């Protein structure tokens, strides 16, 4: 197996749309993308893509599940006014402060380009430049009339940001939806690595839907998979101005391993030891309660699943300009593969 070109893979993964609850097309794309690694791939009723990795060797008893969510935040059509301006609501947590003047795609019967606008500041009564424009004061302008729009889009259609992945300086990239295409990219990287070795564990790669809305995908799929160990791959906050040191992590310094009540302490210790022994640059996140990831729900599925969380730091989470460092994918793949080989 050759090494994967992660930037290219990420450009492909982020170029697709997969807003929470509307992942089906992406699921089909992903199934195709990973078919060369796994022979048994199921897309379930909730658009989870569940792929069993089988090395063909005599399997050990331990059943391992790796999960990364496939959904992204977005917007949803709420109403269309008489002049064709579209009001919308958010799917997942979206900061209204980043929405003005964004280009968006509305996924109706066909894709429509639109731009987000609001009342111009000089026409606002008692205008205060510090006040945020609330999401219900924003609208999308598509250049179509209401009459035309009624044929193409309907209430409930989802909306995504119209951006492409760009390369920044050195190994940094920027795109929408790096949360959590970075996680998906990592898992595909792990599959690719496992093919190179003799690997004896029954392993399920679980690409889950609806993480941004109540973790519905992983709640349903982990109940059915019933693994002995779960490793959740997600993104965490990159270090930015105004973010507390203990909550944010440096891009390029490697995967973030979380420790705390949400995670199995034996496995946590083991993976940290492996990182140290193998000299894989990594960071530690102390999480005293809810990790805010799929790990929280996974840990208490059925009679409990020992769970680990590996995160890739990204900056500006949930914006169209999320930033990450490709090195972190390399390091994460290396760490997870090493850990899996030792199970």
């Amino acid at each position, binding site marked *: 197996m050759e090494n994967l070109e992660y930037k290219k893979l990420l450009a492909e993964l982020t170029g697709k749309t997969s807003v929470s609850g509307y992942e089906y097309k992406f699921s089909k794309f992903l199934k195709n993308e990973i078919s060369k690694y796994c022979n048994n791939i199921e897309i379930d009723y909730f658009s989870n893509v569940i792929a069993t990795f089988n090395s063909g060797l005599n399997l050990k008893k331990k059943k391992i599940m790796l999960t990364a969510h496939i959904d992204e935040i977005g917007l949803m059509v709420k109403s269309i006014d008489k002049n064709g301006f579209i009001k919308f609501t958010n799917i997942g947590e979206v900061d209204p402060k*980043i929405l003005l*003047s964004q280009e968006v795609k509305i996924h109706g019967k066909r894709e429509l380009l639109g731009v987000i606008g609001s*009342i111009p500041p000089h*026409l606002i009564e008692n205008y205060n430049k510090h006040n945020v424009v609330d999401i219900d004061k924003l609208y999308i302008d598509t250049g179509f009339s209401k009459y035309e729009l009624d044929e193409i889009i309907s209430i409930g259609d989802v909306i995504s940001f119209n*951006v492409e992945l760009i390369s920044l*300086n050195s190994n940094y990239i*920027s795109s929408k939806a790096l949360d959590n295409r970075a996680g998906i990219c990592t898992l595909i990287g792990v599959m690719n690595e496992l093919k190179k070795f003799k690997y004896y564990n029954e392993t399920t790669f679980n690409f889950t839907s609806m993480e941004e809305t109540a973790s519905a995908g992983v709640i349903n799929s982990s109940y059915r998979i019933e693994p002995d160990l779960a490793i959740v791959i997600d993104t965490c906050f990159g270090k930015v101005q105004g973010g507390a040191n203990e909550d944010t992590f440096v891009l390029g310094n490697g995967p973030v391993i979380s420790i705390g009540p949400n995670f199995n302490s034996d496995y946590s210790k083991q993976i940290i030891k492996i990182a140290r022994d193998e000299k894989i640059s990594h960071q530690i996140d102390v999480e005293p309660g809810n990790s805010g990831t799929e790990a929280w729900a996974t840990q208490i599925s059925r009679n409990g699943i020992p769970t680990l969380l590996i995160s890739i730091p990204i900056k500006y989470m*949930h*914006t169209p300009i999320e*930033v990450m460092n490709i090195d972190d994918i390399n390091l994460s793949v290396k760490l997870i593969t090493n850990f899996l080989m030792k199970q």
Partner: protein
Amino acid sequence: MILEELSNLSGISGDEKDIRDYIMEKIKNYVDNIRIDSIGNLIALKKGKNSDLKLMLAAHMDEVGFIVKSINDDGTIKFATIGGFDNRILPGKKIFIGKEKKPGVIGILPIHLQSSARKKRVFSLNELYIDIGSDSKERTEKIIDIGDYISFKGNFKRLGQNYYMSKALDDRVGCSILIDIILQTELLDFDLVICFTVQEEVGTRGAEVIAYSEEPDAAIVVEGTTASDVPDVKDSMTSTKLAAGPVLTIMDRASYSNKNLVRFINQIAESKNIKIQYKNTVTGGNDAGKIQRSRNGVKTAVISVPVRYIHSPTSVIYEKDYINTNKLVFEVIREFSFNKI
């Protein structure tokens, strides 16, 4: 398409070279004289049968943007805005820096890490920064210089079936129309001087110089003007509307149009069946302000294309407004005679 190519080029006030070079290339074979003045204005002359009187056409080449102010220790970039910006649109945007168009993004603390008070308040300019994917001042300094100009990426697109969306439509619509006028106009009775001005967005400075040096007898400014036919705006506050035709300005903050000239333009529009609209508010201002007050005064008028979300990377125009503005300016020039105004 010239409008598309012009809009996708960047030319922040003070850094209009790319625009100027592009226009120069397009028009140089169609004019009798062409020069670039000390501040950077591009001035083209089409000589008439008689050179006693001179009509000026003006459009500004510059657009709003940013400039690198300083580089932070963490490798991010502090920037200042150039021209009038609604700073609320800045977070979460992609931008390009310097001659080599190095990509960067305007970062913002993720909403999950914002306090509830922070969530309700806009990030002001001094809280924003540009991230180019560098973790130290030294790394950033290797590729970015203080003073580098920063612009939004060219993104000209069709919106719906009848609209265009782009950055910098103010005033590439004007530049594009004036190029067309140069290419189409036949020999006139008077001298026609076509000026592509600089630094309109930072105080209509190019126009001030040009009006002094060219001493026109009358001038028509071709602009992009703000349209506010959007939700939550009262009809009485709607300055101009899209799909309602070229805009004539009676008065704005900077100039009072010459009544006879406006009447003449209106007559031409009527006779050619071009529907026009008058600007319903007296806000805004443009190069006409400086030209009107130059030397012993110049008769001015402004013909504009209405633009929604002006000064944002997602400005929107109605295609036919643009076409009709072009047509109106063309007809006005063709029919123009100084004894009619």
